[in-house]
């Protein structure tokens, strides 16, 4: 039955049909008709953020944790432009976000009206799709299309820009369209596009390789291909490397798990890559932070690349066999062709590459100790949302991830300020499970205003700040590549315990190892948001490190390395 409703009411109903239960947003002039309608739809919980960037990151975090599109809402002009960093983050890491922006009324568009921006034009290169809705009758289909495009194939952000008068325009609501999907065209949709011969060739390469490696990326997590990956590894004995976004796609306690590759990857992992004769890349894009200098990357290795997006295959590294499709579906087709084998000799060889870790931490309160305490306090059940910088690498390398999709971070864009707002989305997607947002003192101060959102909405995020008084990763680069000129990297912080108090939440400062357990236990027991500051060593570095532009064979392994002063 067709009903006549306003555009805003149609929008709300369409969102409910898509299964949306929470929106992160901020009202303003051009989106007011939508906010006027919103209270009529109690199924749509609105979380009022303190900055629109946080809305986009929270929607992203929600999407990564739930596997369903996260939704953010902003007004035109500055509201819309504040979403940009969050959309770019979601785009680089292929997460489904639907952004809804108000736009000035149609009659005003193009006339530099108050709070008018061309958000479609601005976000074009950082969204999977965007659409200006020019008439109320488009809304229902546009919302359906937005969720379909955002979630299907290689996921990504979609923006709907809706002029204020269209939100007020009356139009017809039919409903039920979410169930009448036509299967729109999306070349990244998981239609396996390879010849059976390619599968056989992949199986032959896997059977014949002497030094094979599996490199698991975000595609494993997005596809939920955990059991299939595990079967492949266990049947063949092939060691598994997890990229930054592939972390938690394979249990870290598993004897076949090697670690993280790339710029801050362990020496034995990178060395294994350089010595390997076959790399099975599952759902990754061979990013430069993973490969180092491409000319020197795994020169003896053939590459089997399983990837949903055909344009990624062969983009960065030459590929022997490309299998276009969802990682899980491809592995399901491939596994029957895989015979049991082992890689014992190769694994022994890799074990010989393992270096005793050069302990860069002289102080007791090391990231390892902090992360172990966090892991122990939640029995390994927590989700870690990390920010960007040194702590991100420590969290990636040192936390013992056992549960699938328990590590969430901004990989491709490297967005400082991501952790705190994204963790709000994660917490709402995983009610009842502990969520830790781990930031440095730099990234935390970029979005710490969101503590207010957590308090107002009762979102129980546990915030950890690794405070070393520096923008640590930049300082580390300055130390090695810029002659120790610490330009603009010392950073002052407020008194975080008092800050927590000002927001009315619990706050702890941990200055030494003996305070660690008590503070973590206190934070774990806290039902609401809580802030814990860890005073860590000021000038500790993340080792090993591949210098920018260097090959994986040239790691800097410790302080003794000769500082390279850039010209």
């Amino acid at each position: 039955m067709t009903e006549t409703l306003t555009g805003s009411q149609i929008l709300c109903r369409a969102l409910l049909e898509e299964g949306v239960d929470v929106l992160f947003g901020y009202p303003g002039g051009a989106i007011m008709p939508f906010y006027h309608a919103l209270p009529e739809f109690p199924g749509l919980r609105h979380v009022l953020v303190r900055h629109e960037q946080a809305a986009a990151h929270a929607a992203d975090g929600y999407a990564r944790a739930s596997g369903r599109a996260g939704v953010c809402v902003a007004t035109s002009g500055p509201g819309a432009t504040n979403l940009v960093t969050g959309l770019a983050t979601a785009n680089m890491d292929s997460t489904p976000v639907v952004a809804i922006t108000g736009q000035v009324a149609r009659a005003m568009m193009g006339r530099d009206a108050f709070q008018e921006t061309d958000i479609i034009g601005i976000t074009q290169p950082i969204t999977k799709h965007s659409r200006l809705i020019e008439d109320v009758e488009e809304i229902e289909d546009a919302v359906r299309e937005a969720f379909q495009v955002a979630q299907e194939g290689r996921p990504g952000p979609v923006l709907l820009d809706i002029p204020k008068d269209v939100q007020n325009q009356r139009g017809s609501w039919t409903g039920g369209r979410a169930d009448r999907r036509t299967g729109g065209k999306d070349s990244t949709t998981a239609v396996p596009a390879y010849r059976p011969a390619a599968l056989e060739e992949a199986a032959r390469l896997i059977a014949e390789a002497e030094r094979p490696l599996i490199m698991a990326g975000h595609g494993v997590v997005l596809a939920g291909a955990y059991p299939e990956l595990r079967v492949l590894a266990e049947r063949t004995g092939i060691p598994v490397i997890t990229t930054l976004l592939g972390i938690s796609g394979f249990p870290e306690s598993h004897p076949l798990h090697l670690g993280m590759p790339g710029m801050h990857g362990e020496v034995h992992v990178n060395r294994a890559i350089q010595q390997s004769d076959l790399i099975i890349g599952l759902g990754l894009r061979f990013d430069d932070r993973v490969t180092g200098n491409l000319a020197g990357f795994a020169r003896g290795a053939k590459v089997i690349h399983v990837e949903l997006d055909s344009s990624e295959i062969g983009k960065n590294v030459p590929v022997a066999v490309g299998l276009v499709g969802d990682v899980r579906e491809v592995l399901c087709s491939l596994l029957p062709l895989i015979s049991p084998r082992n890689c014992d000799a190769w694994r022994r060889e890799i074990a010989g590459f393992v270096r005793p870790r050069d302990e860069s931490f002289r102080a007791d309160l090391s990231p390892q100790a902090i992360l172990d305490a966090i892991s122990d306090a939640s029995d390994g059940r927590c989700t870690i949302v990390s920010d960007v910088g040194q702590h991100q690498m420590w969290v990636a390398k040192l936390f013992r991830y056992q549960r699938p999709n328990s590590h969430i971070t901004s990989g491709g864009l490297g967005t400082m300020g991501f952790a705190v707002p994204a963790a709000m989305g994660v917490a709402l997607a995983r009610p009842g499970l502990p969520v830790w947002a781990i930031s440095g003192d730099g990234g935390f101060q970029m979005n710490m205003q969101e503590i207010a959102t957590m308090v107002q909405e009762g979102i129980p995020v546990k915030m950890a700040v690794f405070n070393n008084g520096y923008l640590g990763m930049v300082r580390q680069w300055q130390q090695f590549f810029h002659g120790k000129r610490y330009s603009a990297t010392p950073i002052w912080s407020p008194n975080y315990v008092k800050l927590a108090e000002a927001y009315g939440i619990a706050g702890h400062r941990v200055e030494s190892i003996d305070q660690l357990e008590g503070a973590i236990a206190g934070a774990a027991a806290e039902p609401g948001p809580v802030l814990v500051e860890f005073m860590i060593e000021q000038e500790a570095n993340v080792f090993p490190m591949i210098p920018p532009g260097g090959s994986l064979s040239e790691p800097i392994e410790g302080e003794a390395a000769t500082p390279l002063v850039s010209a």
Partner: protein
Amino acid sequence: MSDAQAVSVLLEDRLITLTRAVGLIRRRNLPVRSLAIGPTATPGLSRLTIMMQSDIETAERAVQHLEKVIGVRGAIAFPTLDGVARELALVKVRSPHHCYAELLDVIQLYNGVVLDDSNDGLIIELSGSEAFVLSCLRALDAFEVVEVARSGTIALGTANNLQSEAGR
């Protein structure tokens, strides 16, 4: 080996789709020589022809990226040698009396058509492959060329593999 590749894109004839397709070419930093857009035989669909100075692999990667754009119905890359490629140029040339006959000879040599003949100059229509048009423009350089408008190359793959644009 860098050569001229044609990337022929069938897309919805809306400005936003064109912007997306062209924006993508810019963002991926692809070596574009020319762009031409115009309607097709199918209502609602345009054809965008992108000429690229690149190897065929780069052109094929452009196709893969373009095919992900919502509103693009199909794209194909082919070396111009394998297809039919033409461009149109309009040239305004000053035609002083003393060299008028000589100018007409050059125009005739290149199968040019005089579209407008006023007191001071001519507007000439030229068409052919890009190389042909360039060669003609070089010949006209002996006279005083005032303005040039070129359409950019349009191209179709040869008829070996007939696939109708309708129904895309």
